């Protein structure tokens, strides 16, 4: 009964390919996120959506395009993959974007390796 689930868990792909990572949360939360964790474990926010509306868009190459079909889903599409895109991508959700102290719940991560 996973709260934030993302697929695939592992993805190995060649440079130049396009790939998508899907995320779903069953917590009834309004806000969803994508975080990137690099090989040194640095965690950095990429995007935040509230009720399907883009709220936060960090300095991320426009090869990365999030899509939120509804508030329970936030997918990440990556075009023209590069070696430097290799990382663990975490989907997360929280109750709303208004209260700063809302707990953020993370999925288990999608391990992307670009070769």
């Amino acid at each position, binding site marked *: 009964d996973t709260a*934030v689930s993302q697929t695939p868990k592992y993805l190995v792909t060649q440079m130049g390919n396009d790939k998508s990572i899907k995320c779903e949360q069953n917590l009834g939360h309004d*806000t969803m*996120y994508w975080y990137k964790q690099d090989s*040194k*474990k*640095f*965690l*950095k*926010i990429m995007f*935040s959506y509230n009720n399907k509306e883009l*709220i*936060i868009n960090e300095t991320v190459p426009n090869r990365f395009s999030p899509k939120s079909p509804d508030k329970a889903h936030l997918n990440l599409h990556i075009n023209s993959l590069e070696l430097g895109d290799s990382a663990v991508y*975490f989907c*997360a959700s*929280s109750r709303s*974007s208004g209260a*700063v*102290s*809302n*707990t*953020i*719940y*993370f*999925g*288990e*991560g999608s391990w992307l390796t670009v070769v």
Partner: protein
Amino acid sequence: QQQVKQSPQSLIVQKGGISIINCAYENTAFDYFPWYQQFPGKGPALLIAIRPDVSEKKEGRFTISFNKSAKQFSLHIMDSQPGDSATYFCAASGGTDKLIFGTGTRLQVFP
């Protein structure tokens, strides 16, 4: 100044010992300071959090100490156990849900 500086990068503690991880921030607008725990192959999970109106918060063996004037906060794990071995992240935010994470501390507790 959006950074949150965390130290040490790694920590080795014997079972039963005290683990201490420190964080410092610059942005005085930050008003929420959570700690997240991440086990290998898993996503980070909230461990404990504090707001700057208190100087200490304790939950079981985990305590956050907060020094507002110094803009520092720390996590203390008392009676550290092998099951506490994980990567710990401090974080900070203010006004939005944009959590700024520290660089992480890999804790290893040996029996």
